[in-house]
């Protein structure tokens, strides 16, 4: 798979959800100035199964996260889990839109649609889209399992 720089930026704007989705497509690395510097073209890093949907009971393929996950996102994910009480990785993954879909899905658009449809959750007062909150929780769980 080959992603253009523009496509990569689009993925990056989806926050934690983009991390999860891109976990199937590759990984994004940002320098401190925000510049996207690399994106693997190797399709073998794509682990998200296109046959898996969020409505099946079959286990969802666990994505592999980028090598450098911001510790702040992990901390946020922990707060999401503490707030919602939902700590089952498979349950969270099934509820995540975009998983199992085209890895180029616009994560930012999914997040915006959550807000538009008022599918939001409050975490320490932060009004977050359900999808990005779940994604942060997934990130936290994966990292606790030493998979990030």
């Amino acid at each position, binding site marked *: 798979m080959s992603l253009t720089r523009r496509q990569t930026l689009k993925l990056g704007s989806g*926050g934690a959800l983009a991390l999860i989705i891109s976990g199937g497509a590759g990984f994004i690395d940002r320098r*401190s100035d925000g510049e996207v510097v690399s994106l693997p073209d190797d399709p073998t890093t794509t682990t998200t199964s296109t046959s898996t949907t969020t409505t099946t009971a079959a286990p969802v393929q666990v994505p592999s996260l980028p090598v450098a996950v911001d510790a*702040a996102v992990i901390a946020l994910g922990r707060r999401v889990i503490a707030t919602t009480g939902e700590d089952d990785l498979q349950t969270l993954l099934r509820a995540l839109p975009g998983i199992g879909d085209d890895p180029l899905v616009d994560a930012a658009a999914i997040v915006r649609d959550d807000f538009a449809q*008022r599918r939001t959750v409050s975490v320490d*007062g932060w009004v977050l889209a359900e999808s990005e909150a779940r994604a942060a929780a997934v990130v936290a769980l994966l990292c606790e399992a030493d998979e990030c």
Partner: protein
Amino acid sequence: MLTDARSLPSGTRRSADVCVIGAGAAGITLAMELMGSGLSVIVLESGGTDVEPDTQDLAAGDSVGRTLETLDNPVRLDQTRLRYLGGTTNHWAGFCRPLSPIDFEVREGLRRSGWPISHDDLLPYWDRATEWVRITDGDFGLDTWEQRLGLAAPAIGNARVEPFVFQLTYPTLFGLLYRSDLEASVDVEVMLHANVVNLATDDGRAVTAVQARTLEGISFDVTATAFVLATGGIENARILLSSTDADDSGLGNATDQVGRHFAEHLQVYAGFGVAESGAEALAGLAGDEVTIPSGRHAGNRHGAKFALGLTDDHLRDEATTGVEMQLLVGNLDAGRPAEEAGRAGTSEISALLGHRAESPESVVYLQALAEQELDPESRVGLGRATDATGMRRVELDWRYSADDRARVLGGLRTIAEAAGEAGWGRMQLIPGGVHADAIDNLVQGEYITLYSATPSEIDLDNFPIGVGFHHMCTTRMTDDRNEGVVDPDCRMHDVDNLWVAGSSVFSTPGVATPTYTIVALAVRLADHLKSVLL
């Protein structure tokens, strides 16, 4: 001319065509509008030309209902009003915004909502009010102001939320601004240190004289063809309730409506926001200055800025109350609040949004102002204690409900969701968890307040609600004398020669800051008085 009641012989009787009680935003606007009309005007002002503690004490009273407070600070009644020339414009923040059309409509499910006049009825008077409050004009359109400021309004908007414009006038102290005009006038006399203690009447149907007193004990009265009460939302009711010549319940109070429906703007220290798109998206929220192109104040500069509010359609569809949110830019220490350990703060959200290097300028403080539903039991009454003039002091029983609180939270969340939908960023709503640092810091020549965030203190059932010093609806304008005190001309339903000016006549509070509308209504009342008296 400016005179001082302390120089009058006790027992003096003065007369004029119009006697205006109070020289604040409403009273001075009335006087200026009537100046040169052929009508003689006496304005009675409690204070002098600067604050005087003994006079200020006349505004003191007991608050027996909801607590009056601002962020982390209790507020006394006498701190909410200023009794000297210019009135409470002497600490006016200068935010101008007209009411919205929805404010004039009856909203099903909201008690006593709506006015007996329409938004369109007030449009020409808001236009004329621009001259008195010193803003550019009555055009508050987003496109207009984006062009004038050269700044973009925040791109946050859907069917429920929209940006709007504040015009900011500063410092617009009516006493200072119009003092020379008042001094030079031959037909308007502003009498200082004149504390009104009674509206004398024989039968309760007409005022025969205003009885006033100085703190030195000089008593005098003023007769007039028309009398106008313009002393603020609390004092207007207090004077009516204290005027018991014909009825122990007060003047014009046969239906027991005087002082009821006291409303404040619910000020909520809501939390913080992190912008996804960086500091450039915040420029319109900080605003800028423009030059007034023409008119009385041509060449003066004043400010304008954008903020966010709920749309009329949303308020109508949901039968809910207005909420507006200012996103205050650049007044936070290093651009971000001190955060509570172990909680999600701006750093986490910034990381979520993909900012590895958090931009301090992208963090904003959220301050909200909200409308409350009218409650007849929320009221201005009289206590047992008396002041230095012998008048009974105010006893304020301010009330708001759990439903009001829920509507505020719903409105804030609606705005936060619109911000996320627009890709603007994320908002943290922690009412009760925002605290001001006790020490102000001097930053770039201005004193600012620092904030800390303690989400663990969020109490959605009991978070503190501050006040805007906006006292409204205590002599509300209605067609039905059983639901209010003045008619659509601002004349008392039951007193033929007594009119009321100021935000006490607001039928429904709305969420817009009130002074601009107070001035517009005063302009309108001046026209009415001319039509009646000339």
